[in-house]
Each structure stands twice: as C-alpha cells, then as structure tokens.
C-alpha cells in the first residue's frame, strides 16, 4: 500500500467497510445503548414458574421428565425446567443478521 496516498484505507476501516456491506442497517452508534443493554440482559429466559412449581408439587419426590435431546421440542407432560429452556436470544443478535 502506498502510504503517501490521500486515500489510504487503514485495515480497520477496510474491515468496517466489509461489515457495512454485509449489514447495511447496522446501528450508527456501535458502542451505544443497544450493545450495552444486550450485555446487561444476559441470562434472560421466559419460563412459567407457576406451571413449574405446580408440576414439582404434583410429582413430589419423583424427578420431572426432562426434555429430550432436542431442547426446543416440548411435548406431552414435560414441564420446562430452567435448565431445559434455551436462552432467549436477545433481539440485538437477530438484528445484526437480519439487518
């Protein structure tokens, strides 16, 4: 690369151009609140604690039937437990790809 040229592109800027080409709707403020909010919300899962506790009470000492290998498939008597639930993907992740 000729460093005397006015239009030298640093490696970082070149990478930025690549990213913007892939995701044209990427937010203007990357370090802004969207990104940080995602960081603060790690661990969010949606889960019905009422159902879960009722099922636990009914089963008493028996183990709750756990999810099969495919954790996304909840069928029959299975009441989701916190461990079974997949992590809710925060909306920032989908927006990064969906644009």
């Amino acid at each position: 690369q000729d460093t005397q040229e006015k239009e030298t592109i640093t490696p970082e800027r070149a990478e930025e151009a690549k990213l913007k080409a892939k995701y044209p709707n990427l937010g203007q403020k990357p370090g802004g609140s969207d990104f940080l909010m995602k960081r603060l919300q790690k661990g969010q899962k949606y889960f019905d604690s009422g159902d879960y506790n009722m099922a636990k009470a009914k089963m008493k000492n028996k183990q709750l039937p756990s999810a099969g290998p495919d954790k996304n498939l909840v069928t029959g008597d299975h009441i989701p437990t916190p461990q079974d639930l997949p992590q809710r993907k925060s909306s920032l992740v989908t927006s990064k790809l969906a644009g």
Partner: protein
Amino acid sequence: ADIISTVEFNYSGDLLATGDKGGRVVIFQREQENKSRPHSRGEYNVYSTFQSHEPEFDYLKSLEIEEKINKIRWLPQQNAAHFLLSTNDKTIKLWKISERDKRAEGYNLKDEDGRLRDPFRITALRVPVLKPMDLMVEASPRRIFANAHTYHINSISVNSDHETYLSADDLRINLWHLEITDRSFNIVDIKPANMEELTEVITAAEFHPHHCNVFVYSSSKGTIRLCDMRSSALCDRHSKFFEEPEDPSSRSFFSEIISSISDVKFSHSGQYMMTRDYLSVKVWDLNMENRPVETYQVHEYLRSKLCSLYENDCIFDKFECCWNGSDSAIMTGSYNNFFRMFDRNTRRDITLEASRESSKPRAILKPRKVCTGGKRKKDEISVDSLDFNKKILHTAWHPMENIIAVAATNNLYIFQDKIN
C-alpha cells in the same frame, strides 16, 4: 472437566485455585521439594475440590443465574486455614479451607461409628484421645454475600487492610466488610437516570496493593478512573482519569469495541497499573493520566480480521493479564492456545502455546510465530489457520517465582522456568 473461568495463586504461591463454568473450585498445592531430587521444583497436585456455586433461577426477573465462577481472590493467610472469596454473577462467598489430620477417639456418649451409647450401660468415664488420621481437606462456606448486585459481577478485590473488599458489576461497585454479610456500601454508581443514555459500563475494578483508600475501575470505553475513598463516601467523581487520546482520523465502527478494557491490574509495587484491551496491553504510570508509558501489541494481525471477529463474537472476548512477582514481565493470552509474555526491560517478547501436542512434561516450549503476510515460513502459522475457539483468557503468575498457570479452555497448564 469443565471450562476454566478463573485462575489465581495465593500470596505464597503454594496454592493455586481454579474456578470453572460448573461452579466448582479446584485448589492445587505445591508439593514440598523432594530431598532425593534437590533440583526438581515442587509440582502442583490437587489439594481440595468443592462446589462453590449452584445454578439459580430468579423467578421475579425471569433470569437464569449461572453458577460459573467469575473470579477467585485469596485472603492473606492469618492462621493454619486458608480463606478465599469466589463469586458468580450475583453472589460472593467466603470459603474456609482447613486441614484435619487428627481425630478424637474414645467418646463417652457415642460409639466410634457415631451411634449414641445407652447411658445406663456406661460404667466408666474415659478421656477421649487424639489419634492421627489420613489428611482430610475440608472446605466450608463461612460467609455468603448476596443480593447486592442487580447486574453481573465482573470483579472482586481484597483490600490491603485485610478487612474489606470490593465487588463490581456493570454499573456499580460495592464495598463489603468480610465479617458483615447483610450490608454493603455502594461506592460507585454509574447508572444513568434514563437507561437510554447508557454509554459505558464498568469492566474491572481493583484495590491498590498498599493504599487501602485507593481503587481503580476500567470501562468499556477504554478509560480508567482512580478513586480515593477518603474524598467522599460515593466515589462517583474520580481523583484521576486515565485515557489515551485517540487519533480521530483512525476512528472506525470497531474503535470503541476494541478499546474496551477487559482487565486492570496494579503492579506489585503499586506504582503502575496494566490494562488489557482487545489488541494490546498497556502499562500506565499512576502519575501520568494522559497516556500509557508502555504499549505492547498482543496480536496486531487481528486488526485486519475485525469484521469476522465481530460476526463470530470473538471481538467481545475478555482477556486477562498479569504481572510477574518483580513487575519486570507481563503475560496475557491470545487465540490458538497461544499466550504472550513481554519483558519490560529488554523489550523482548515471546509467543508460546499451551496444548498437549506441543508440551510434553519437562520439555522446553518452542516459541511460536504467526505469519502476518507474504510467504509463510516453516513452523509459522498463518492468521487464517488460527483456531479462535482455543482462547487463553485466564493466566496467573506465581507471586515470587517463574511459575505460570495457563488455562486453555478446560485444561490447566503449569509451566516453570527451566533449571539449568
């Protein structure tokens, strides 16, 4: 074995603690040197293993609380027992690790197997005697410091007064007394009144090694604030503000993300502090706020890979860094199970690899080199061949000797200086 999430030597270096993603703590102890092999250094063997934290579910907020141990910090030893603090995202626990090598035998009211004796059958009085038994190492939780953090705890740091410690989450820092679990003082709060205005979070915090009133905290914007607890109860106003001026012409989408500081560590002398951001390690003189005194490039070749590192989230990896005992060298991890060491005096640096293939016991590690462009020499590895899933985030250096502990995903490597 689970993924190791923290590694820490104690003050003497005889004990090495690791915490993992499953909430377990494993402590290794250095064996005494063998008289028949006077030049062999002591090896580290498992001393104690215990479950520190369990997964929890906060029903009110629908939040899963991971049992992963984020940090372990040892307390200075005051008696025969060892104490350490371990923390997950929400709760800090004080653990006591003690040895038991004697057992009392000959109780009057119970049998050897613990069953109560019928009092009417007891005809004579005897004095129990202490008999030796196989060494047992017991870990018991002595204090549980809970419910003080709304956000995720990233750091804990024991004060030089040996009575208090701080815990830091994304937005707040709390001060605790080791004896008191139902109260803590909030000393830093950067939560904005309107969360929409949030622009930076706290990434790490540490107490000064000698001045019990001084601590620092780093941010996601690449700044470090030094606070003095004597100046006010709430240290929202810093005493010193460390930031390297940025060249505005080189600013890009990635600038702020890669400037985020993932670790801050005071030197043992207390004169300097070191910060780790995505691509470099910087040494700061506490008396100079406007720029670091030394900057070391860890893996500058990644600057032209930032787009894909953003896509695979690696750009958010949090690497730690550490000083050697004399503050003459620093160490930090990288990808492909590589770790880097920098000698501050000679300015020499070295890249080494922690992997089974390249380290047979007692073999000398071969320096590694990443080829950044042009023709790849034999033994060099090209940037595109690096395995970004093999990241060394956690390393520790023995407080006095040249012994290092390197966590490579779920394996712990302990390396030491070769003895000529």
